[in-house]
């Protein structure tokens, strides 16, 4: 079953790369609104791609393994952008200080 294991392993390596890049971006970026992009790279590129690779690897374990991993991947796909959107909207509403080079904030201009 090397033809299912090898694509799964390639997806896992892509996931490891994206998880580490996203985590480095999480500590290097200057602002909570900019850091959320790195967090999305780490979650979508890292966790979800790794979980789909693990679905391919788990197909030969049989039983409920690949189905449950696929359900976990679907939960992460739907839950993570919703949570990030909610926390960033709360951060903007509670006036978290932005980066000093930010020059455009259209949401606050709309609010007046």
């Amino acid at each position, binding site marked *: 079953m090397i033809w299912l294991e090898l694509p799964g392993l390639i997806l896992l390596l892509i996931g490891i790369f994206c998880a580490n890049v996203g985590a480095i971006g999480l500590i290097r970026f200057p602002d909570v609104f900019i850091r959320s992009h790195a967090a999305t790279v780490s*979650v979508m590129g890292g966790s979800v791609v790794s979980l789909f690779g693990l679905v391919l690897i788990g197909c030969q374990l049989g039983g409920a393994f690949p189905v*449950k991993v696929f359900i976990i991947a679907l939960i992460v796909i739907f839950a993570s952008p919703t949570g990030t959107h909610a926390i960033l909207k709360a951060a903007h509403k509670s006036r978290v200080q932005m980066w000093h080079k930010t020059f455009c904030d259209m949401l606050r201009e709309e609010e007046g």
Partner: protein
Amino acid sequence: MGILEALFPFLVFSFFISLCIASYRLVRGPTAPDRVIAGDVMVNVTIVLLVLLSFHHHEAMLLDIAILIALLGFIGTLAISKFLEGRDIGD
């Protein structure tokens, strides 16, 4: 299962490095939303680690725990964002 068994320590170590880097922002975030986003990233890496561990030990119960952690992390993020909406943090 040959490839995953052979590479299991490397995979766990790589994801653990990402977990350690994200925990720096969790400890030293200037504001509360920073910590929440770092915690979200750490929850999702932990889910991948749990699935890897479940494949290594042929234990299907760990997958249920991973589903539980995903849902609880989502609910916690929403609850903290609702809590933070009313307060002034910066400025």
